């Protein structure tokens, strides 16, 4: 499961900030920062190294040959795509609308969107199963709808940060005064300037779906994480190898998304893309 989205990180001073050289950046880092980094690093790396030692190298190729692996993996990928698309389509216009027309509701929205984190998944899933129509209960896509709810806090915060970094009202009005309708304004003006938020939301949603276990398991769907846990009862090393693989695949995926997004947005002077925050490059000196 991914970390919580940080607050926006707005750089809003003077001319375009000069990028520090890598070496300079390293030299400037004080000792205590290194210390924290090393401690946190050890904390994360020890379980991974232990897992790797437990599996050995031969377990990795075996993962792909296991029964149920490909269908579980495929289901997880499918769910990731559906959830991401639904989340973006629902949350982007909603967040834009709240920012533009109902700014007073922003507090409330923040509260509402935190609910899926506060409410335990067990409660959520029981509630959903109570009210979901029958034809949906028999399909794995019900899970996608549940994941949309789970992804909402992250998507909302990503868009919220991106929109705060824009002068939304002025951009929308400028577009309208030039003849742009709502669709055009959203597509040509807002979306490109929210690329960083979009990527951030996508990355978080994908990470969430690929790692979610509780809901899928309670819903009796064999997603990739559920398969790993089930398979653990058959073969420990192969199951651990599968989770290591899942980790690597997810990382590669996220790295690819943010690299592509970052390169594109740098070209047009857009926002910096980092995994959990959106920083605005300044939009000109004043």
């Amino acid at each position, binding site marked *: 499961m991914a970390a919580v989205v940080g607050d926006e990180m707005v750089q809003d001073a003077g001319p*375009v900030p000069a990028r520090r050289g890598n070496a300079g950046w390293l030299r400037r880092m004080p000792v205590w920062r290194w210390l924290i980094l090393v401690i946190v690093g050890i904390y994360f790396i020890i379980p991974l190294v232990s897992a790797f030692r437990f599996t050995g190298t031969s377990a990795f190729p075996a993962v792909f040959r296991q029964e149920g692996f490909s269908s579980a993996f495929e289901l997880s990928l499918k769910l990731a795509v559906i959830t991401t698309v639904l989340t973006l389509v629902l949350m982007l216009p909603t967040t834009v609308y709240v920012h533009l027309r109902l700014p007073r509701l922003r507090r409330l929205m923040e509260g509402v969107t935190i609910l899926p984190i506060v409410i335990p998944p067990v409660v959520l899933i029981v509630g959903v199963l109570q009210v979901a129509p029958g034809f949906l209960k028999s399909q794995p896509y019900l899970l996608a709808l549940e994941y949309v709810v789970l992804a909402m806090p992250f998507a909302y915060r990503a868009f919220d940060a991106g929109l705060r970094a*824009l*002068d939304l009202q*002025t*951009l929308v*009005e*400028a*577009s*309208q*005064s*030039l*003849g*742009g*309708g709502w669709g*055009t304004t959203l597509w*040509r*003006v807002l979306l*490109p*300037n929210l*690329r960083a938020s979009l990527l951030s939301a996508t990355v978080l949603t994908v990470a969430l779906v690929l790692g979610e276990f509780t809901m899928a398991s309670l819903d009796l769907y064999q997603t990739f994480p559920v398969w790993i846990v089930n398979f653990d009862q058959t073969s420990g090393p192969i199951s651990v190898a599968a989770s290591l693989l899942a980790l690597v695949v997810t990382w590669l995926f996220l790295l690819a998304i943010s690299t592509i997004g970052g390169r594109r947005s740098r070209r*047009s*002077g*857009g926002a910096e893309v980092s995994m959990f925050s959106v920083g605005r*490059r*300044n*939009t*000109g*000196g*004043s």
Partner: protein
Amino acid sequence: MSMKAARDTSSSSPAGGAGGSSGATVRLQNLSRSFGTVQALAGLNLDLAPGELVALLGPSGCGKTTALRIVAGFETADSGRVEVNGQDVSPVPAAKRDMGMVFQSYSLFPNMSALDNVGFGLRMRKLGAAERRSRASELLDMVGLGAQAGQYPHQLSGGQQQRVALARALAIEPRVLLLDEPLSALDAKVRLQLREQIRALQQRLGTTTLFVTHDQEEALSMADRVGVMKDGQLEQIATPHELYAHPATAFVAEFVGTMNRIPSEMLSLLGHAPAAAGDGGPDPSGGVDALVRPEALRIMASPNGNGIVTNRTFLGQLTRISVRLSGDVVVQVDQQSTEANAITPGASVEVSLLEAPVLVAERG
């Protein structure tokens, strides 16, 4: 004139109908608008002649921006109407009003180059890519930024961004150009250059323009007529000179330029007959003040003068001197700097009034 017609007639001339297009008439009729308990506009009436640049000037909260936004279509009036060329545009959404607007804050689309920003409105009007490019380039040349066509907003200075914004607003050959304090975010020197450029361009294109500002210098230097607003209504609308020389009300007199308020009974002290109610002033029961410009007063060093210098501010060619007269009345006097050198704070001076007061007003 319709957009189509405007475009057709201008396709051969550079920068889209330069010099050729005649502006639209604009009429604001009895516009009212309240936000909660605050009445932003209280029956505003305003007429703009074709090709005219009218500035709306007033303190913040006087309703000038609300008026502009209603004309643009971003706000709706509670009552009243806006007519362009005799047609009520109230039901027309902002996107279809054919009005170019330059905003106070930087409004360029950060994801588009200067050229694409200028071409955006043309794209919305379904112009082909080639024509769009060439017309956008012409407009950028016109504002002197042809060389920056490929640059993105974050690579441009504030002044350059506002020039691109101006080119973008003009590219669609708007029926009306709306300027919402476009210079207020810029530093003084750039502001001065840009206001001359905007005025020259506006006159060349003949676009009817409504310009909102709180900067009186800007309004007086750029506009054909200046409307001074107070509490959601026009206090006075007149040419800059008329407004300065013959303000209709005390508010206008004191808002535009610097003004001294001198109790009328003190005028004799300044070598002038006391102002009477007959001088155009209101009921004098509570006493009246004469409103006098700093340049209408003169001071001379005099050991037994009628005032003491309290402060001196160097303004370049002129020096503004504050003098305390009897009864703690402080007046500002503009004096040629060359003559003002000898007059230092604490000196006794003789203040005299050279010309009749601009206005006689109830004591405020």
